[in-house]
């Protein structure tokens, strides 16, 4: 076995190339914004503009096929986010939702659809929100109440009515929606759905931001790309929205298959090795915050809590290694993502115990690490984004061949 995570010479050389390019092309004033809910319209678009610049080089989605606007870079692709991460910028801001729609298009779209939809998405020109969740549709994704029904006379058009919620991100509207709907009121469950990839500015569409206190789930928000679109969620309302059938993704009635292709990517954890930035910062505090160092030396019980956090985060890392290293594992369920969600709130509690009430304040002289821990604590209660642990357990049980 080999647990080393060293880069090849080729990768390191490419990293230098990326770094040099960034020195030249990355605008100033892109310092991280810990609480993304506070990102202004200008700050947001500065990041989008930069993403387009990355997109021109194929570096926004470096792993996606080059013919559709990706970088086709294979094992080199990881270097780009690594170099971005080093600079600790709140980037790449436009990738998150495209990241889910693009694989669905690659898996289920026609050649024509791939050529039409992917390039603007992969070059950062078509910000695309995924619209699945509805007020009555959470874990039970198949239970869509938003209807996309064929127009009675102009049969090549669909008329969409309904509401989506907990979707999208900062500063609407985006360019596109990736939308799941019910398109057949009679057909059986799982056969009554259709997916669309469609413009977001059609008449009858309205968007309303929600006032939520967590930003995203624990892992996500604490990284350098914490300030992503996930920071703000919205409701989207469809009121007799007229959409041409050419925006259908997959055939009419194929919505469930398209969705499953999306989930396989969303819940799989992506195959990268987990790095938990919040716990990194936490251990830094334990080593370097003089008051804390003193308390931990005097109070072995508190130090034992630090060990708890260590064990949780090591388990998280080891499960992500299993995910990434793949073949040695016994099954392919989203075990890592589920663990991170369930135990994220457990180690958040331990961190708070150790750090004291400093964990909860996010501004001023007495806040730690620019309020990172307060944001982390808020996020630790959010388990829904990207799929609830319950939904993941359903998948894991299926992978273990005990669940349906």
């Amino acid at each position, binding site marked *: 076995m080999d647990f080393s995570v060293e880069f090849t010479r080729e990768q390191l050389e490419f990293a230098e190339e990326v770094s040099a390019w960034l020195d030249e092309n990355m605008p100033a004033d892109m310092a991280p914004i810990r609480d993304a809910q506070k990102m202004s319209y200008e700050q947001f678009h500065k990041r989008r503009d930069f993403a387009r610049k990355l997109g021109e080089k194929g570096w926004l989605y470096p792993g996606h096929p080059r013919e559709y606007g990706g970088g086709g870079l294979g094992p080199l692709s990881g270097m780009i986010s690594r170099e971005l991460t080093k600079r600790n910028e709140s980037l790449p801001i436009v990738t998150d939702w495209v990241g889910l729609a693009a694989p669905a298009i690659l898996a289920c779209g026609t050649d024509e659809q791939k050529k039409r939809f992917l390039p603007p998405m992969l070059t950062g020109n078509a910000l695309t929100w995924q619209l699945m969740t509805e007020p009555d549709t959470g874990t039970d994704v198949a239970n869509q109440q938003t209807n996309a029904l064929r127009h009675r006379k102009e049969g090549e058009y669909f008329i969409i009515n309904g509401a989506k919620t907990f979707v999208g991100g900062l500063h609407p509207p985006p360019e596109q929606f990736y939308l799941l709907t019910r398109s057949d009121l009679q057909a059986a469950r799982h056969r009554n759905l259709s997916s669309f990839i469609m413009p977001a500015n059609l008449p009858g569409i309205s968007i309303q931001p929600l006032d939520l206190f967590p930003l995203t789930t624990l892992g996500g928000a604490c990284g350098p790309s914490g300030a992503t679109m996930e920071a703000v969620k919205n409701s989207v309302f469809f009121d007799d929205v007229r959409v041409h059938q050419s925006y259908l993704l997959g055939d009419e009635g194929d919505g469930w298959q398209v969705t499953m292709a999306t989930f396989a990517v969303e819940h799989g954890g992506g195959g990268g090795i987990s790095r938990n930035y919040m716990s990194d910062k936490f251990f830094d505090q334990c080593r370097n915050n003089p008051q804390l160092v003193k308390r931990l030396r005097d109070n072995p019980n508190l130090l034992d809590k630090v060990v708890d956090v260590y064990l949780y985060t090591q388990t998280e890392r080891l499960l992500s290694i299993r995910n990434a290293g793949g073949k040695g594992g016994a099954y392919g369920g989203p075990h890592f993502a589920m663990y991170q969600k369930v135990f994220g709130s457990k180690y958040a509690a331990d961190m708070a115990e150790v750090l004291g009430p400093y964990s909860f304040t996010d501004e001023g002289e*007495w806040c730690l690490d620019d309020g990172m821990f307060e944001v982390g604590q808020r996020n630790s209660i959010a388990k829904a984004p990207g799929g609830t642990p319950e939904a993941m357990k359903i998948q894991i049980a299926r992978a273990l061949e005990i669940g349906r």
Partner: protein
Amino acid sequence: MSLDLNLTEDEEVLRKTALDFLRRDAPKDVVQRLQETNTGLTDELWRTAVELGWLGIIIPEQYGGTGFPLTSAGVLFEALGSGPLPGPYFSSGILSSLIILEAGTEEQKQQLLPPISKGEQIVTLALTEPDYSWEPGLIETTATSVNGDFVIDGVKLFTMDAEAATQFIVAARTEKESGASKGISLFLVDGKSDGVSVSRQPGFLSGRVFEVKLGSVKVPGSAMLGDKDQGWLPLQQAIGKAIPILCANKAGGCQAVIEMTLEYSRIRVQFGQPIGRFQRVQDMIIDMVTHADAARWATYEALWKLDTQAPATESVHLAKVLSSQSYWEVCTLSHQVFSGVGYSRESPLSFHTRASRSLYHYLGEPSYHRQQIGQLLIA
């Protein structure tokens, strides 16, 4: 055996009155608005609470209160915890009053307690410092004797309700060379004194906590509560009595969260049935009930021991560990059941999440109390 877990008639009335008050005067939109203020108060709410006698509930009649047992105060604060109602009710009416009762001279009690009971003065404890701890060893604020007056210097952090308070009880070191708990004195400091500055320590989860800077604040010798250098013991005793009332407050929060979660799990439908039918959801709720029940009964047992003068130290520590952890965990689990709709700042669940976090370390975090239990177990 005379085990009896029922409320007395008086307690039932207190409870009902408090719940009616919340429903009528402090429904969820009021609570949400109060949370965002620096005082957690409106004049009307304060006036009503004073009229109902809540500020003097544990203050003896000779000092203008009603002198109810601690258990009754627990019942009241359990009910208020279901809001949860913001405001300095606990800080002033319970904790500070108990400190004055434990530490003050007869004269000080006669002078200080009636205005607390009438709501004319709002007093809060300013104890913890940058080296955050509920143990005495880390107090660095000093009070230096100058011609019979004292000059106080230091920084108090995470001071509850400091903006609403008219006065602070400040723990300061009057003797440097003594041991950890010796040489500490308590002072009543007017919030308007020169050298006092108060600023909020912001954060959605932080609650109403403040930095209180004391820069060469001059107070008269008469501002000292009780004896010089001897402030720690009565302070500890007062905190020991106040803790289970705070625990009751958290237990009330747990109960409210469980009720809203049960209700939601009965009406929210997924996969064609109420989510409460799913074993995974049931197990989360069963966990919540276990946590909350243990916290509630540990709390009332501690109160009963205190009211009957039985040795209560161990029970008080137990109640604080269980209730701090329960409230935290009940909210976390409830968020998992509510998912998206619980994340809204308008959701009453979020009020409780906020309270469960902001009260977690207050009067000692669980690991502190666990340590105390450990020492008792091998004593």
